[in-house]
């Protein structure tokens, strides 16, 4: 490792020691939504002041950190168990990637600084009838004189009840083949006709939402890319979910996550014996550590290869699939090792991932990774077809 990088690491470490709020996990467990939003916004601005909020953005918009440093940054944030950016996630990753890839200069000038100031975004892609088969979506955007009028229903929009804006996919040409009649719109969540209803999830939290859209006006300036070319734009946004964001999650799993699992296993049970002293527990822990080590290397590789344009067509899917199923195996084991005591943890800290150490909740929450963002089944099909070149399945009629 170069001296320059070592120095940067030392600087990030110092910053983390001074700025990661002590005891945030306990303080943020079971808090009301307003407190969660306040805490998230405050942490985002703290990171922003240090230049750590949007390191992946181009320099002219406040980023420009070389990938090698970003890797170090996320390693250290994970090692110091910093809060996750949950609310800002869609804005700084999906919205920014969309605007940078397909947005106009005007759209970038309008939205990127606002995201840095704390504007919250959500994603309006999935629908009740369009999950894995996203291209079958039925929400419509009808062209009017000065823009579009949107009608329909969106589902699984995470954080939508706090969102200011929405990345929306809607059908603008009902007669075109499914993927050629979709447009990509930026929608104001405060516009009349937008109705957000949180959905209670398996964990008891309500982070995902339904969005009902009833004659919602979206100005023409909110169209990203060409009309009816939204499917291609969406593929760029979905890609933003991978790479560095996966690396951050893998580092969290390998640092604070695995550390907490060891703590769980080192806690004496009712009979005084520690799970850790059971060879079978040791074996499972070593297997998990090995898999996490492999995952972290996969993520670093993906980031480095994506940076040089050498990533394979299925590399992101491999990482997403492996991470989600490994998270599930690890939290499953945590729940088993922790025993009944883990079931008394009724809440997990807000702003933490699904490796919080409240293992039963973490385990239930792990399906939040194996289902959305392309389910594990969809990822396996992508890996088989794009990664290995296996023949496609005949389409249904």
């Amino acid at each position: 490792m170069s001296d320059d990088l070592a120095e940067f690491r030392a600087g990030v470490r110092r910053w983390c020691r001074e700025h990661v709020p002590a005891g945030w996990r306990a303080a943020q467990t079971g808090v009301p939504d307003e407190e969660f939003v306040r805490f998230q916004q405050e942490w985002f601005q703290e990171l922003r002041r240090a230049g750590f909020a949007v390191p992946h953005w181009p320099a002219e918009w406040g980023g420009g950190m070389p990938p090698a440093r970003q890797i170090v940054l996320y390693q250290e944030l994970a090692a110091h168990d910093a809060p996750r950016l949950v609310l800002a996630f869609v804005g700084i990753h999906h919205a920014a990637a969309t605007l940078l890839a397909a947005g106009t200069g005007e759209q970038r000038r309008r939205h990127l600084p606002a995201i840095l100031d704390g504007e919250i975004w959500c994603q309006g892609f999935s629908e009740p009838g369009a999950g894995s088969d996203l291209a079958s979506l039925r929400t419509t955007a009808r062209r009017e004189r000065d823009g579009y009028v949107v009608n329909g229903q969106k589902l699984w929009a995470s954080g939508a009840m706090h969102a200011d804006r929405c990345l929306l996919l809607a059908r603008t040409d009902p007669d075109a083949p499914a993927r050629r009649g979709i447009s990509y719109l930026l929608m104001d969540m405060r516009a009349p006709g937008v109705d957000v209803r949180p959905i209670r999830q398996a964990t008891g939290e309500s982070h995902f939402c339904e969005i009902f859209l009833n004659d919602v006006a979206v100005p023409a300036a909110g169209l990203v890319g060409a009309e009816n070319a939204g499917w291609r734009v969406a593929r760029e946004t979905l890609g933003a979910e991978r790479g560095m964001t996966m690396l951050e999650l893998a580092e969290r799993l390998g640092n604070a996550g695995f550390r907490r699992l060891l703590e769980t296993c080192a806690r004496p049970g009712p009979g005084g014996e520690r799970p850790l002293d059971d060879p079978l527990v040791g074996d499972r822990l070593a297997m998990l550590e090995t898999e996490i080590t492999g995952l972290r290397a996969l993520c670093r590789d993906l980031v480095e290869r994506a940076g040089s344009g050498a990533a394979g067509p299925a590399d992101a899917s491999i990482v997403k699939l492996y991470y989600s199923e490994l998270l599930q195996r690890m939290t499953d084991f945590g729940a088993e090792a922790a025993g009944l005591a883990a079931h008394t943890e009724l809440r997990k800290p807000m702003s933490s991932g699904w490796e919080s150490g409240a293992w039963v909740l973490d385990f239930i929450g792990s399906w939040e990774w194996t289902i959305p963002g392309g389910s594990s089944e969809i990822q396996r099909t992508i890996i088989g077809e794009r990664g290995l070149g296996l023949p496609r399945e005949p389409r249904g009629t």
Partner: protein
Amino acid sequence: MPADFSDLHDELRAVARDLLAKGDAAVPADWYGLEVPEPLDGAGATFAETAVVLREMGRAAARGPYLGTAVLGAGALGLLEPAPGRDALLRRIASGETAVALALPGEHGGDGAPFRLEPAPAGWRVHGRAEFVPDATEAARLLLPARAPDGALVIVDAGAGAAGLGVDARPVLDATRRFGDVTADGLAAGEASVRRFGGDPRAAVRRLSERAAAAVACDSLGLSEAMLDATVAYAGVREQFGRPIGSFQAVKHACADMLVQVSVARRLVAAAVRGLSGTAPGDPGTDAAVSMAKAHACGVAVDVAGKAMQLHGGMGYTWESGVHVFLKRAVLNRSLFGSPAAHRRRLSERYRRSPDGGGPWRASGALSTM
């Protein structure tokens, strides 16, 4: 890895693949000297280059005493103090004229020495036994890790056929590998044939076990890649129900899982190889990286070769298809130089160490380097 080696890796890989694809073709003689220093007629390369050859040998399920001679024999000699006899043997390895075996027990490798020295009127007598020693039956010289009466770990360099030294073949189901049990029963060893390690002997013997385990992991990785490629090719052309079987989700998803597992194994093996080519013996990070690579890659290879047999259907179960060759080699690799469970036991010992006894567990890599 030095930058100038990356071209060498590509070239080595291409040549090896080409040569080994021809079936029974042997590894070129000069590759035995990859890690032999240049002044001794070798290539002066590192384990990273040896690993390229090993992976291709796994891919081709190739035969030959490469593990015994190049990985373990030359590896052991390289850790010894320079001496005329040692240097001469390294030269003969580099020229491909002499096959060597290191008598590490194949079951677990081990940290200690399976042989012991007892004082004799003229030098020493050697006693001890090591089972399942790779390539022992083909070796012209045998290197015996032994403990001297003063407790020092040394290597006894003995000629095959010497009085008091026995090598008994241990035939195994995997026809691509050869093992022998090495027994020393009063083998006479003069002072000149007892060689000492250059650095800490315990760390050196440990490093030899690491090399052995990592070599097998490289082999299993190459073998997995070959089985995945063959299965994907077959699933793309074999038709049932009027379409290629690879278009069925059950088959496609099984292949996807194979690719995911192989991708992870590749990263873990790469980390182990980096450790072995870039650190001195005794490095705890390399020790852990090797155990992870060995446990994971060798487990994956059995899954992948087994799945390859399954997805090739009835054809896969025939002798003629050859899938069984890879499956047997994968199953043998899994048991060779430490089972996955044994390596995970080694890893899990780190979790139980008290803060004063060697430091608590820390995520490897995250806090130090990438």
